């Protein structure tokens, strides 16, 4: 029983990483109706920026803050410069563009920082808590995710920019008529997604170690989480990510070998889509004929 609980808690810690990336995916999906395949690599690149800053001697949280700002600006820039031209192109063009971005980020990171695996410092000490049920590091990761969620909720609920963003995502045409700069809102959505991804990358890097291919598996689980929660629902993304994290940990510990990890994610995604295509919190898409 004790071991099971231990696995559940470390699953929650992994799950909060998936939840963050899933949240970033949902953010982009809701604002620009795109699935961003480059989300993981963008997060990886942000993590390298943080790593450079920490190595340059900055305190961890200062590096963290600077990375978030840089990522936010970078995300906005990507939307304005690269995504905008394909906004009305065939959906495949947009998919190809985000996959191109994935390759570019991966390759440039490998070029600048090399493909060797790097240590990444953790801001939280690795000490067991509550009879070794959970480590302080896992607890820290979960706490950071929760704080980020609350901040995002407050932003969308109580600020005029947040309201404008929701309006732009829901009905771009009407929002534009109300004087909302829809394009700018989309860019902010991408910026926020990039910053959320950066947080996830920085939190996961001490566990997975930093290398350009770090986020491949994480992205897949995040997709599974986003789908499970319903790809249009931010709350769903978080819940879905947590469920996926716990499931992955339990299945990996008790059921099957870890070399089939990605296959588990595949099975999970298919099961969700077959039995609950709109996810737990998603809304069914009603179509007018």
């Amino acid at each position: 029983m004790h071991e099971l609980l231990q696995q559940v808690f470390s699953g929650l810690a992994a799950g909060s990483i998936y939840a963050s990336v899933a949240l970033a995916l949902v953010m982009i999906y809701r604002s620009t109706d795109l699935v961003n395949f480059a989300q993981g690599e963008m997060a990886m690149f942000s993590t390298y920026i943080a790593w450079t800053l920490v190595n340059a001697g900055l305190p961890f949280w200062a590096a963290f803050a600077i990375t978030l700002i840089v990522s936010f600006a970078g995300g906005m820039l990507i939307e304005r410069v690269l995504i905008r031209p394909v906004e009305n192109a065939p959906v495949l063009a947009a998919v190809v563009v985000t996959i191109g971005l994935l390759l570019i980020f991966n390759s440039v990171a490998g070029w600048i920082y090399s493909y060797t695996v790097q240590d990444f410092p953790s801001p939280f000490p690795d000490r067991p808590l509550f009879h070794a049920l959970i480590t302080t590091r896992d607890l820290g990761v979960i706490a950071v995710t929760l704080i980020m969620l609350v901040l995002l909720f407050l932003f969308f609920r109580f600020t005029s920019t947040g309201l404008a963003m929701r309006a732009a995502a829901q009905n771009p045409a009407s929002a534009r008529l109300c004087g909302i700069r829809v394009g700018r809102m989309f860019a902010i959505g991408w910026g926020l997604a990039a910053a959320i991804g950066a947080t996830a990358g920085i939190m996961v890097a001490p566990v997975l170690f930093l290398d350009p291919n770090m986020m491949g598996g994480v992205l897949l689980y995040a997709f599974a989480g986003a789908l499970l929660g319903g790809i249009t629902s931010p709350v769903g993304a978080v819940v879905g990510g947590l469920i996926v994290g716990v499931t992955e940990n339990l299945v990996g510990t008790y059921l099957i070998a870890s070399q089939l990890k990605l296959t588990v994610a595949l099975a999970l995604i298919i099961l969700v889509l077959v039995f609950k295509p709109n996810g737990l919190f998603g809304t069914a898409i009603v179509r007018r004929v």
Partner: protein
Amino acid sequence: MEKNSAAIARTPVGIERHGTTAAGTWRWAATLLAIAIAVALPFTLRNYHVFELTLVMIYAIAVLGLNILTGYNGQISLGHGGFFAAGAYTAAILMHRYGVPYWATLPPAGLICFVLGVLFGLPALRFEGPYLALVTLAMALATPQLLKYFDTWTGGQQGINLVKPVPPAGLGLSQDRWLYLIALLALLIAIRVATNMLNGRTGRAWVAIRDQPIAAAAMGIDTARYKTLAFGTSTLFTGVAGALSAIAIGYVSPESYSLFLSVSFLVGSAVGGISTIGGAIVGGFFIQFVPNFANDISDAAPWAIYGLAMLLCMYTMPHGVVGSVKPWLTRLAQRTAKRRSQNDGGRSP
């Protein structure tokens, strides 16, 4: 979701309009000339370049399969590398374990991939647009793992080494040229079959489902059946291409069938033009040669150059090379035809 399917629909429809008999004759002459050049080409090139062109044609068959699914039926797949691997491993296992001659492995490889495709297409009926892309992405990522896991059959990490086919003794052909001719024959058959299917009842049903799924169902098209059929046909093409690649390269290993291969197919398809048949050949060239060019330009970050090439293609030609050039050519042909008929009309009385 509706927006997405509509966005795919905006690509030009590839239904051929058969023009006047004169145009038909010209078309035939051009096709025959192209085939003649393709047959003569390997005898003017070095063996290594012949081998590269063989791979181009094999990739073209795989991309053609993807075009049928994504371009004509609107289902995005990021997992065709998995079906390519299934075809390759079917051929490899049959040749290696059971001593089946290489040419006899193509039908079973195609059949197995058709069945796999139909099985995968059934749950895929419920996924649309980006959802299907995600599922197939997961499949592409899982493929190397699965291949390593079932190592009694697949040889695990080491893969399987194959004996390359020997050309018939009487012809005096080199091995590479013989493989080239086999691949060319397979490509021609694939193009012929695809053209017939796409211009016929099945193809029209696929396009109708892609453009207006609800209207298509209302007109009595069995949407589920045709979508599954599109999946199976598509994976059949890709599986045969996979088997050919195993025969041509003489080696299969899990790492050759990574996500990157699946991505290459989709990129080749998008660059060539998803809703075209000729685009598959452009795609084959892109898959085979652009990574090499990228390597020549920058040793350090070749995939960044590759990614940039993808972005540039999508910005300048969102409908792909053939998809962008074709409407223009058609208009040109129509204008010339009109002018010619006007001239004739002026002269005859």
